């Protein structure tokens, strides 16, 4: 499962920063049928976590109504240099992990 993450490389302490993540995933709803009429099993990313230097700053519970390749955008406050860690898990138990670092000045 690939993903794209966008975080400012640098920020000043106290800045409100924008975090964006785009995850490649089919987000199979569980309501669709294949060509021969069998129900396609639901497989959606059901939870997405974001930890900033180990502290959870954002969590999203996703479900069937979300489009394929979900895009999530949120804001947090730059506090210290370090790392953002994103993890997500889908119904089949497959887990995704991406990390990106930030330098905080001041």
């Amino acid at each position, binding site marked *: 499962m*690939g993903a*794209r993450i966008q975080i400012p490389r640098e920020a000043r302490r106290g800045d409100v920063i924008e975090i964006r993540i785009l995850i*490649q995933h089919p987000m199979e709803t569980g309501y669709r049928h294949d060509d021969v009429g069998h129900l396609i099993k639901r497989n959606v990313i059901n939870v997405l976590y974001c930890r900033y230097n180990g502290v959870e700053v954002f969590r999203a519970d996703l479900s069937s109504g979300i*489009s*394929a390749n979900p895009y999530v955008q949120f804001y947090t406050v730059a506090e210290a240099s370090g790392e953002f860690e994103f993890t997500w898990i889908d119904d089949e138990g497959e887990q995704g992990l991406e990390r990106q670092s930030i330098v905080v000045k001041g």
Partner: protein
Amino acid sequence: MRRARARLALAAAALAAGVVLAQERGIPPGELKSGSAFLGSDLRALQNDDFANPGMLWVERGEKLWREPAGKKNLACAGCHKDSSMRGVAARYPRIDAASAKLLNLEGRINRCRTERMGAEPLRYESDDLLALTAYLARQSLGLPVATSIDGAARAHFETGRASYHRRRGQMNLSCGQCHDANWGKRLLSETISQGHPNAYPAYRLDWQTIGSLQRRIRACLSGIRAEMLPYGSQEYLDLELFLAWRAQGLPIETPGVRR
């Protein structure tokens, strides 16, 4: 006197040729509009957002594949092609392959390179890998005008493509031009009919929830008018692609487009 008359006749012939050429085009160049002009502002913004455009997931994957050795010869695309040399390439496709004298679209070119130079298996049409490589290549011509040549051996394909474009087909007995030349800008239920240009493909369609090739889009149109769909990579689609590219001459490449 005679020379002047000959010159006049030549000028008249040139004028007539010009008129014929202008008549060939269903839409005058000044009125050409990319498919993105028929989108809402939200989707246009999504397409123009380098990060959030979901098609960029495939472009990124394509970049990785470009550098990954494959096949018996363990060659990567990047081993032969310098990246900077690929800018503008996609804008010239479909084009005649010099070696085989066959018309190739970008997908066909990639697969020909794989089978003939890399000793690799061709990638399946509409597979994520082929879409990724195609999107990555096309992305490098971002903003460049579509500039396909219909000279020489391409001419016959162009004529076939044009005939195919104007042929009525399917249960609804519609030709491509009846919507995309004669009625673009009007509504078809909730949709605005576009001019049917190929400059944003492979494009991410919300309807598909994924990226798809131009041929997939053509098939969607054919299915819509209840006409027979041909297999991927068929000659008729290739010729039609060439005609569509010619029709869109001058429009900037937008790959990966975002469409409804």
